[in-house]
């Protein structure tokens, strides 16, 4: 794995660098100062070199809060990649997870934390798993392409959520667009005491919103790595991803593997949603209408080359970008949109492996697809749609 990492490192790093250069050009071309912009971005993301009096601790805390769901959601995209599946549905699965988590957290709000917290987290995972399972089953049984089905499931989740909290059963009160909060027992503790009077780094400790979900996310990353490289299932997932036929001839049930993969992936995405509810919001709000974690997760998975460590690093980058965007606007006066343009550029750059091209497609590094050397390309529409995996 370490080997994979080092050999793969040049490509993602180069891609990010390239994206930032291009982004800088766009800023400059539109009359902005890329250096001050990036300086503010770094300050906002990592609390380093802040000119506008930002509190470094606060910035880092904010970044981490964004990073937590990106890690778990990133895994939800990366795992299916390994099986040759392109899960664009992390967002929908995340929403399903947060919905399940909230519903349980409200229904059993009186239960004590040791019981309720596991309930909401597992409930979130189940919700996400079921949402992804639809795509998995459709794929495994009649070969419906998962890219399309997951996109559709994303929309359905979106509208279902709106229904639930705008006039639906989960609505807090008429005229509101949020649910009532989950029980105290369903909430993840913050790492620092949630206390307005206790002063840390010159700020009330309650402003540091980093919560124990961080530990869960890191554990999830470790579990992902273990599953992939140290278990028979992971082996089978990778085998199916690299060659469905070979896997089938070896007696591996391609259908079962596809479904199981999607279920697990959905579980991770659902976990991301549950953690957001249990750790940050404590209720479903309209913020989830505009949530994009599940899409950023695609970039995270690609940039992380589908490896656990890579995902964590990529999640940190995108978390920092998100958190830094606001500061960049406040301090450097460059629109936060730049962050999204950067993200798109990074995607292009990885997808096309411009780096590889620039480096004359040096053998071993210059794989001209979105995916790192040991990842299969997203399966072509046809072979998938036309020929569902057959079993003996």
């Amino acid at each position, binding site marked *: 794995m370490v080997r994979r990492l080092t050999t793969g490192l040049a490509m993602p790093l180069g891609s990010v660098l390239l994206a930032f250069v291009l982004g800088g050009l766009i800023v400059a071309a539109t009359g902005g100062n890329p250096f001050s912009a990036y300086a503010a971005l770094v300050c906002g993301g990592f609390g380093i070199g802040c000119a506008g009096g930002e509190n470094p601790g606060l910035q880092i805390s904010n970044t981490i809060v964004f990073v937590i769901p990106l890690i778990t959601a990133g895994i939800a995209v990366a795992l299916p990649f390994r099986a040759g599946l392109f899960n664009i549905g992390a967002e929908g699965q995340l929403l399903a997870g947060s919905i399940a988590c909230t519903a349980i957290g409200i229904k059993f709000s009186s239960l004590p934390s040791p019981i309720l917290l596991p309930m909401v987290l597992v409930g979130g995972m189940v919700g996400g798993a079921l949402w992804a399972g639809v795509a998995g089953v459709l794929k495994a049984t009649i070969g419906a392409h998962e890219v399309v089905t997951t996109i559709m499931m994303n929309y359905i989740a979106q509208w279902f959520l709106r229904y639930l909290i705008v006039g639906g059963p989960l609505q807090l009160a008429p005229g509101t667009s949020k649910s009532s909060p989950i029980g105290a027992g369903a909430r993840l503790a913050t790492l620092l005491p949630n206390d307005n009077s206790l002063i840390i780094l010159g700020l009330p400790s309650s402003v540091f919103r980093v919560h124990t979900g961080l530990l869960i996310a890191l554990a999830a990353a470790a579990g992902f790595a273990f599953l992939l490289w140290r278990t*028979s299932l992971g082996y089978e997932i990778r085998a199916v991803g*690299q060659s469905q036929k070979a896997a089938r001839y070896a007696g591996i049930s391609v259908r079962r593997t596809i479904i199981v993969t999607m279920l697990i992936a959905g579980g991770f995405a659902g976990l991301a949603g549950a953690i957001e509810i249990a750790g940050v919001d404590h209720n479903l709000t309209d913020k989830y209408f505009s949530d994009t974690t599940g899409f950023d997760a695609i970039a995270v998975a690609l940039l992380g080359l589908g490896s656990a460590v890579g995902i964590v690093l990529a999640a940190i980058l995108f978390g920092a970008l998100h958190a830094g965007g606001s500061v960049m606007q406040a301090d450097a006066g460059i629109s936060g949109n730049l962050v999204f343009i950067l993200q798109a550029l990074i995607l292009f750059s990885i997808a096309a492996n411009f780096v590889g091209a620039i480096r004359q497609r040096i053998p071993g590094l210059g794989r001209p697809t979105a995916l790192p050397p*040991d990842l299969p390309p997203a399966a072509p529409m046809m072979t998938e749609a036309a020929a569902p995996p057959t079993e003996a």
Partner: protein
Amino acid sequence: MNEQAGLAVEMRGITKQFPGVLANNEVDFSVRRGEIHALVGENGAGKSTLMNILYGLVHPDSGEILINGKTVQIAGPRDAIGLGIGMVHQHFMLIPVFSVGENIMLGREPATGPDFYDRARARKAIAELTKRYGLALDPDARMGDLPVGLQQRAEIVKVLYRGADILILDEPTGVLTPQESKDLFAVLRDLVKGGKTIIFISHKLKEVLEISDRITVMRRGKVVGHLITKDTNEEEIATLMVGRAVLLRVDKSPAKPGGVALAVENLTANSDQSVPALKGASFELRYGEILGIAGVEGNGQSELMEVLAGTRRATGGQVLLAGRDITTMDANTERDAGVAFIPEDRRGTGLVLSFSIAENSILGRERTPTFSWRHFVLNLIAIRNWALKLVKEFDIRTPSIEVAVRNLSGGNQQKVIVAREIGTNPKVLLAAQPTRGVDIGAIEFIHRQIVRERDNGAAVLLVSAELDEVRSLSDRVAVMYEGRIVSIEPPDTPEERLGLLMTGGGSSPSMGRRPAGPEGLEA
């Protein structure tokens, strides 16, 4: 033949470097106008690369090409076609969902009005061609429905339609029945009479000797010999190809058959297109013998092997393994029961190319107690030791077991599969095309391994498209035709008789598949 005729093709000092491989190294190659010139060599010798260069699909790093004495630049197929060069590829360049007519016309379609495809004129054009060269085809048939023989015919007509004078045929007989091959040869001779020049790529020496006027032999990207067909023989060519004397027979002691290992009772199964492919095959396989299955590809051999291996569902019939019914077992259970399977498509189904040797060495066994704890957590040490053992025993040439098999030579890739399957001392060994596309050295090694298994008492079922291999390796030869075992013969049965049996008594060339269009068009 007209010795004095000028050169149709002359390639000088062609060099092409692919990542890791020097595919062509200073190759000089020339073909006289109006001859059939055979280009022979083992897989990976550089034949196809050379021809792809001539056809503009690949661009040489250096060297020059002359057509009819004039230096030319061939940037792409368009240029090649313009120069009157046509190529019939080993893997047909046909679109199954298109009609024969559309396939032939593609790229040079007749048009009416603004740009409408003119079906009528297409029909007429094809009718003329088929009349001129006696190559009957139904222009409206769906290409996917034609038997290979006719598909190849369509490929040839396609090339002729483009006005080719120089035809390149890449391994044209690989997929043909002996009868279809004969027809093809007749066609080729006619074409040459009609003034065409033909380059014939093959590794089947008998055919080469039968059809060609001159022979160019390649080995490891270099030309190692120019021969006049009538002054040479199989041994000479083989020696040139391999670079050393090779014995074309397998030496093995007579078999000592034991009890019945596999009893196959009127087994039926469908192909991937879910049309019946196996139509009631019955035979017995005994321990300590090699039963070879001779047959034209596409007569149900693949399906038979897959059903026996448990990777394809049988639609009827019964398979008994030492008396135990295994008809409906899946691959894992069968493997546990002692059935090992060497699938025919090495790269496609036998290996996960991006996996390391170690990983491939447990493919399908990743949940066995040997390699995993509780069928879940992999035992990396056990896997490593196992892989090292195989590499040593089966002489797999590799720097380490962590190398991805993608980076191994075809022969070593095949050895990995053979090692994995034989390594567990199976009771029954199913070997489908075990030596397809591997160098002669590896062929010899693999043959020895298979014979050794037999001598250790295993029952071996062998399927091969190479009749020679079947005859030289088997103790008994079962001939398969139209999804049935039509006869079981001793290995020394003359090739002519086997060929006849393989073609169901050698009637129409389109057998084994649905005939296309009216029978009248055939032959």
